[in-house]
Structures are given as C-alpha cells and as structure tokens.
C-alpha cells in the first residue's frame, strides 16, 4: 500500500493556492494575441512565430504520471499536441486512437516507457508513451478537475507560442479565466492560452456539428490513417469523433459501434447538414462515415483523398446505408468527470479541491451536490 503525505493545515494551503494563482496569472496572463480565423498548417506556424518563443521557458516541468492515478496528455507539442494510443506497448502495434492535448486519462499500468491508460470518459483505452503524459502541477490538476471545459474549433491548430507549440482542433481544455469575448484556457504544462469565445464550444452546452464544420477547412487534404483523430491524420470514424469534440461534445466514444449508438437514426429523406451518412464500402468492411455539409456536399476522410469533400451524387446515394444524427446536447455532463477526477485524486488534493469548491461556488445547492459527489468518490476510493 502506498503511503500518502499527511494533509497540511487548510489555511496554509489556501494562502499558497492564492499566491500561486496570482503568480500564474501574472506569468501566463492575457497579453498574447489569439490566432484570427481558421488557418492552414503553414499559416498556423507562421502565426505562431508572432507569439513570443520565450513563453516556452515558463512551462511547467513534465511530472511523470503515476499508475493508479489520473494524468493529462502532454502531447507532442511541436507536432500538434497529440499522441498515439496503441493496442500494445510497441511502436508497430495497431493504433486505436490519438489522444489530444489535455485529455484526461487514468493510468492503469506501466511497461517500460509505455503506460496503459483509459480516457476518463471511457472513450478509448490503450497504450501511450509515458513521455506524452504528465501528472500535472497542483494548480493545473485543480483547474482540470474543477473548471468547465471548452473545445477548440480552430483548424487545424491554434499556435501556442513562437516555438512551434500547437493546440489541436478538437482539444478540450478547462477555462482558467474569462471575459465576455475572450477566454483563457489551461494547458497541461501550466501555461494558458487566450482564445476567442466565438472559436470555442462549452462542453456542457455542446453546439451543433455545423459549428465545427464552419471551421473545418484547415483539415482539408490531411491524410487518412487508421486510428487517426487529430489534425495530423484521421480515419473515417476519427473525423466524426474530432468534429463532435470540436463542437463541444464530451465523452465521445472512439469505437464506431458505440459512437453510432449515441446518434439517432434519421430517414434519408429528412437529412440535414450535420447529419452523419454511413456509406457502404466494398465487400463486408464496416461502413464509411461522411458528414453532410450542405444538401449536396459531404465531408469525408477516405484512403484515396484524405480529408476531402465529395458530392452527394448518384454514386454516393447508391452507397447510402443509413443516416444518423447527433443531438446538440451532451449525454455526459461535467459532473461524471468531476466525480471521477475527485475519486482519482490523492487525498491531500481532495481536501484542496473541496475547499476550493466551497469557496468558489456561488450556489449553495451546487456546492452541496459537489460535496456529496466528492465524498462518494472518497468513500469509493478508500
């Protein structure tokens, strides 16, 4: 049994928390310019050059993730903030999914440089390189565990600094601070990223798929790759998964049957933009999804063209197996994740979280509910 550090007096922790929060605001404050509008890959890098590269120096050090605890996806910053999730701890293994920057995972085990993880909402499970995970500083963990989350919908990437660090389309990150027009989202490395409210969707109020589609051009001509769901590469299901995430849906399953199970069937005569068309592929292979963009244009990820549009013509109609629609509301509210996060947090941090919830909550009933949830978590964990 692992020994846990003894909780420190709450008053001291609170003072430390306040000071650190002030310091972090000072260091990571909103002086950065957000990227304007949807941008392509080369443009993203160019825009990134305008951000001060010195920013990279204020990153937190990566703290190794621990087995049995929850951790954050640190991602491959320079490659676009994603990490491969593989079937087994081996570089050549099949890819199941790609974890995006800031994804929260539970670490189930470790073998060498690899960690077996499961996404907190059970979207996917597999092996990820330990170097792409961070335990996170206290402040970061607190923000990720307690704050509402927003989805980035700027494709393909939002530049973070002038050193080429990128936040990918579809990443879901907690809000550290906000105003009417802008938000500061928390990054796993301690920095914050300034984004426009119009470019994000709140995960507890997901928007329609059309919102994410409006900014999807940056993904065009990206390659098709099995198990891909990042702007670097997608497969058919991965594209839908990514667009749903960018629309603010959380807990989106990566596995196709579970994903289609979350959508309701629609008759082909009542199709609307944003609906998912499942198209027959040759032989007995699973159907390939495409997203209806307008009444005559679909978006797909195909092995022949990568991410691309295709016409809703006779050929496409002849392949149509069924139409499915995702509703605008998420079936997973932030509550369940928070409960999991609390359950997975070490005891000294739970005290801090409880205190934080009580002090920051404006609503007594909400605070009470949170407290109940947290206590249940502690009870289960212990």
């Amino acid at each position, binding site marked *: 049994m692992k020994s846990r550090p003894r909780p420190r007096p709450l008053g001291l922790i609170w003072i430390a928390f306040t000071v650190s929060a002030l310091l972090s605001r000072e260091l990571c404050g909103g002086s950065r310019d957000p990227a304007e509008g949807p941008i*392509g*890959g*080369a443009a*993203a*890098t*160019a825009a990134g050059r305008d951000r001060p590269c010195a920013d990279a120096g204020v990153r937190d050090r990566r703290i190794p993730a621990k087995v049995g605890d929850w951790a954050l996806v640190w991602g491959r910053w320079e*490659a*676009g903030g994603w990490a491969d999730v593989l079937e087994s701890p081996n570089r050549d293994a099949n*890819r199941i999914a790609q974890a995006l920057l800031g994804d929260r995972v539970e670490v189930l085990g470790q073998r060498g440089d690899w960690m077996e993880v499961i996404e907190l909402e059970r979207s996917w499970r597999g092996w990820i390189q330990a170097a792409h995970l961070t335990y996170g500083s206290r402040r970061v963990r607190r923000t990720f565990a307690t704050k509402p989350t927003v989805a980035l919908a700027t494709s*393909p*990437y939002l530049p973070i600094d002038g050193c080429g660090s990128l936040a990918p389309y579809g990443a879901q990150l907690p809000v550290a601070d906000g105003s009417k027009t802008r938000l500061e989202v928390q990054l796993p490395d301690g920095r914050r990223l300034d984004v426009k409210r119009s470019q994000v969707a709140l995960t507890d109020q997901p928007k329609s798929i059309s919102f994410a589609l409006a900014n999807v*051009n940056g993904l*065009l*001509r*990206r*390659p*098709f*790759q*099995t*198990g*891909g769901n990042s702007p*670097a*590469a997608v*497969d058919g299901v991965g594209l839908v998964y990514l667009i749903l995430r960018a629309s603010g849906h959380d807990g989106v399953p990566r596995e196709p049957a579970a994903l289609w199970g979350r959508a309701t069937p629609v008759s082909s005569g009542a199709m609307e933009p944003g609906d998912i068309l499942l198209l*027959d*592929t*040759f*032989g*007995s*292979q699973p159907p*390939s999804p495409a997203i209806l963009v*307008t009444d*005559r*244009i679909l978006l797909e990820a195909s*092995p*022949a*063209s*990568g991410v*691309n*549009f*295709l*016409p809703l013509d*006779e*050929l496409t109609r*002849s*392949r149509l197996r069924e139409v499915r629609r995702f509703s605008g509301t998420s079936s997973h509210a932030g509550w369940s994740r928070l409960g999991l996060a609390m359950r997975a947090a070490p005891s000294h941090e739970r005290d801090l979280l409880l205190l934080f919830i009580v002090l920051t909550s404006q609503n007594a009933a909400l605070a009470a509910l949170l407290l109940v949830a947290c206590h249940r978590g502690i009870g289960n964990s212990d």
Partner: protein
Amino acid sequence: MSRIARCQRLLLCLCLMLALARCGPSDEGEHRPRGLAWTSEQLEQLARTGTHDDANQLFRMGEVPTALRILERIQQQDPSGTAGDEARLTIATILMSQRRYTEAVPLLDQVVKNGAVAPDYAQELLVEAIVEGEIGERLGSAMAIAAAQLKRRGELQSPLLGERFAALLVKAAAAAKDQARVCTAGAQYLHEWPNTPRSDEVRWLTARAFDYLGRDADTGNLYAEIWFQTPESPWAKQAHERLRSGPRRSTGAHPMTSAERLAFAARLQKVGLHEEALDELQRAGSSGTPEDQVRALAMSVDSLLALRKNRECVQTAARLRSLAPGSTEAAAAGLLAIQALRRTNDLEAIREWTAWLARTFPDSATAVEARYSLATFLQNSDRRDEAIPLLVSVSQAQAQEIADNALWKLAWAYRLEGRNAEARAALERMLAEFPESGFRKAALYWLARFTELQDRTAAVKLYRTLLREYPQDYYGHEATRNLLALQEVAEWSDFGDQKREFPVIDPLDDPTRRPATDAYARAVSLAKIGLFSFAADELETLPDAERDPSLAFALADLRTRSGDTWSGVEILKHSFADFLVSGSRDTRVVPEDFWYIAYPYNYRSLIEDAVREAGLDSAQIEPALVAALIRMESRFLPSAVSPVGAVGLMQLMPGTAEELARKVTGASVTRAELFEPEINIRYGTRYLADRVTDFRGEWFPAICSYNAGVRPVRRWWEARRLDMPMDEFIESIPFEDTRRYVKQVLGDYRNYQWIYYQGHRGGQ
C-alpha cells in the same frame, strides 16, 4: 402589325422553343452510359432473360460471370442448333481469354461436330485450345486438323486462316516434341509468312528444333536471324546466348561493318539491351573510322548511364570531351555526364561540366539544359537560394521544353520559400507563354490552389478550365473536389469538351455496309458470334483501317473484346488522343464503349474476389484501385514482362511473390504461375493491401511503394512536413517516375469508379 412582322415573331418563338428544348432540363440518366446504372438485381434479371448481345456487352463491362450464365443458358436450351453453337463459341473464347483451355475444348468439340456455325474458325479454336492448354493426348489430332486445314487453305472461310493453321501446326508439333515436323512446318511457315505477329515465335521454335536435331548451320542461321533482325522479340536474348555459347555459327552471315554495328547497337539500346549494345559499340569503335569512334563513345555514354554505371559514364564522356571537344556528341555526352554526377551527388564536378559546356557551346540549347540540370540538383539539395537565379535565367531561354520545366521548378522553389506572389507569377507566365506545355494542367491546378484563399472567383474559373480540358486526369479529379470546398458542385456536363464531335462509329451490324469488301462482311459476322480476334484480323486487312476513324474505333473495340486490351488503348491513343484527354462524359458526345476500351476491366470478378480476400484482415482497398494499378502496370496483358523481370498483370517480381506466398499460404509460387491472372491478381492485391497496412491505411504512400519500393517511400513519408497537404506531398515525391505513376493510378482509380461503379454497388 404587318404579316411579315407576325411571321418573324412566330419564327422567333419557334427558334426559342427549339433552343429551350435543346438546353432545358432533361432526364440526366439518358446522358449517362446505360450500362453504368446496372444494379445487382438487374444483372440477376439479365442472367435469366438476356440475349447473346447482352452477354457480349456484359463481357465488355467485366461482368463475366453474368455473361457466362446467359450464354450457358442459351447453349443448354439449344444443344444442336445455331444459337447454341454461337453461344458455345463465345463461351469458349471467353474461357480461352482466361486461359481456361481445358474447359473450352468440350464446347468446341461439339461445335465442330455440329459443323453448322463457322466450322473453320471452330476448328482453329479447337486446335489452339489443345495446343495452349497442352492437352497431351489430343496433340496428335490437333496436328492432323491443322495439317488438313493447311492443305485446303484456298477453300477456308477466310484467307487469313491458312497462316493461323500453319503457325498452330508448328506449335502443336513443338508441344508434341515432334522435332522433325517442327522443322518442316516451321521452314514452310517462315518461307511463306516471314513477318507476321506469330513469326518470331515460329522462328524460335524452329531454331530450337534444328538445334535439337544437331543441324548446326540451320540453327546458327535462325538464331542469328532472331538476334540481328528482331532484337525486340522476347526470344532475342536467348538466341544471342545460344549463338555465343554453342559451336554453331551462321554460315551465310557476312561480317558487319562498323556502321552496321552502330545501327544494330542503336536498336539494342532501344529495347533496353544495353550490355549487349556496349559489346557492339566496343567492336564498332575499335574497327571504325574516327567518326565512328566518336559516335560509338557517345552511344556508350548513353548505355552506361542506363546501366547506372555512373563513374564509367563520366569517364567515357571525359574521353569524348578530349577526343572531339567541339562536337555535338561531346555536348550530348556532357549532359549525360551531369546526370550521372547528380546521382553521385558530386556538386563540384557538376559545376565544372556545366561551366565547360557554357564555354564550349555558348548560348546553345545544351548550355541552357546543363544550367537547368544544375539548378534542379541545387533545388533538390535544398539550396534554393542558388537554384532560383539559375532557374530564372533558364526560364528566359527560347527552348520551350526547358523553359517551361524551369518555370515549373521556379514556381515550387518560390512556394517553398514562402514567396507565394512570385510562385503565382511564374505559373501565370507558363500558362501565357507555353499554352501547349505538358505542365499546363499542373500549372492550372496549382495556380488555383495558390489563389483560392485570395481570389475565390479566379480559382473557381481555373478549376473549371481543368474540368473542361483534363476531366479524366488526376488534376481534373482533384479540381472537382477542390471546387466542392469552394461550395461549387460540378455537374455531369461540366466534364470535358462538349463541342468536339466524335467521329461516326461503325457499329459492325450490317455486312453490306461496305460493299465489295469480303473481309468487312466476315468481320461483322465474326463479331456477332463473339469471335472478336478473328474479326479484328479481318478488319485490319482493309486498306482504310488506320485512316478511317470509324474503322479504327471498331478495330480498337474488337481488339479489346478479344482480350488484346493493349492494342485497344494504343489505337485510341493514336486516333482519339484528344478524347482520351478531354472527352466528354456525356454519352451523346462520346460513346460509352470508348471508355470501356480506354479503361478495360477484364478479370473483374477475380479482382473483386481478391480484394475481398485481402480486405478480410487488412486495410480498405477497392477493386477500382486494383484495376487502375493493373492498367498502369500491364494494361491487362497477362503475359507482360518488364525489362527488370516483373511478371504478369500486376507486374510482380517472382522473388517478392514467392516470399508473399510463403507468408500467406505456406506454399510457394513459381514464375510460370504468375502468368496466370488469378494467381497474379491474388498476390498482387495482397501485396498492395499489405503496403496500405504498412502506411496505416493510406493509399498514396502504398501506391508509391508499389512503384519505387518500400524503403525510399518510408524515408520520404517520414521526412515530410506533418502539415503538408496530400496533393503537395505527391508533387514533392523526389522520383519523377513515381510522381507520374501515383498521379496516373489515382486519376485512373477515379475513372474506373465513374465508368464501372457509378450507381452500381460493387461487390454487393
């Protein structure tokens, strides 16, 4: 209003109505090829009720199982009548085109026995099936039939049949190992028909028979004839080896002069026999005049470069440079030396040769080409700052073939440097100054891509130009998708040139259409009963066959239907090149059969089965992709062999296939088996599917690796910028051949999709 005015108004109204009737909305389905809309239910219905003509059309579309079902039904319903025999003949030719000779023989026996339909042709097919199928116990009877028919050749249904029986007699005797008969029949054949498509094989078989019987002089003469007169034939290399190794020498052959040797070496170079060419060049150089020596050295540089003997290539070019410094041969050799040096990455030597060419041949096309070669090397080595000024100077040269190349490279150099405005300007200049350039389609496409963010309208216009001018090309297909990104949907009528009229087609349905031409009448009758190869041979004897487009089209059609898809495409390339590039997809403009000839789909069911099998535990690939790959590799010719030894439809290397077979089935596969379409397609498809899996389901790198090998492609793939769009990756492939290959295969994949799968659920 006066009466005249009223008449004018009435006339105007009529004209308007007519115009509206022409331009107004009409049933879109009518514009499209009728065969394209066949569903699996319709195919089932056709199998139950279809006619012989329907079967012929289905065979054309690659729907062989349904075609065979129709014909089987007809032949069973009519065991001894004409309709049944016609069906049996067609079934036999289909089976023979799939090398299923043993199954064809009983059907042909029945037709011969009934004797009512095309009796001489039926006998010819029977002998052919026995010989090609190597049915040992029937070879004696095959020889007897062939000999008897040859005797009465003046009475046969066609004068062409005599030659066929004569060739079959030689082949049957060879298969029966009756060497004496091969010698007599072979000598007779070569005496009467020395230059036919079959004479190369007959010459080889006869030479082997003479060799076996120890008749050295005759053997030597024939081997020498094969080697010196037909170095292009598949047996030439073997004949040369036997000529060199054996004691036989041609008694009648006179020694060659050095000029003759040079001419012969040029022929050898043309067919890729460079080692042998070098031998001849060495002899020509050592015994000839100083001019011959210079020419021999210049030609040697060419062969050494082809053999990738780069160091020797440069040394030989240097010898030539010192021997004849001001000669045109030295200039050409200098360019080849630069190419060899580019392979060895010797920048200093490239600079030195470029400077020498500039000094020795100032302002010449050669000097410009050398500068271009140096610039290309610099650009490929990421030294764009040095490459750009050189490319600018080359692009201002007069010679188009270099100037437009330079402009294309210049545009990309600017693009990679982030100088987009200059990149656009280079492409615009190319389009304005070189409207006939081979880079036109690429320039249109990339100008649109570079422009679409700034000027949507201009980009749409450029993409639409591509659709009109190059609808069947890779760039045309990409333009269609890029238009969708700009919210523009291309209609069926947007593809291709709607105004260019297709020549009137000869439907080969009336034997009296061309009076006084028996061959034409025979061709029509033979085509009707599915004997396409014979019909094509007849048509080819007509004096107008090449000049008359309607006959040329009918000939291409017959060749393709008979399984000679290679010739079908070649005829279209020769007589209908414009339609291949920009033909409309509207069947009122370009007939549907044109596309079936241009994009043949033989062995469709074998391909679909192989894709199903490979897809069970592998990546998603589609039959249309495999069809496009086969078209590119062999144009559906099962006997195709490449100079490097790749074999069959999908051009598999025997070693690779062997390795794959052991992995997949635990058994082995021989080179001979790879000529079997079923085996070749199965392993080729599996190999492609494995490459797709290697690259995590993506087709581009898999197609590249089919051409260039896995190792270099993995290197390019892993070194690419992660945000690089796929079309840019394809454009940046370092091997020019592979770049062209992947574009061709991807473009053809889309063509196979719209020709064969539009509205039809493949594999369902």
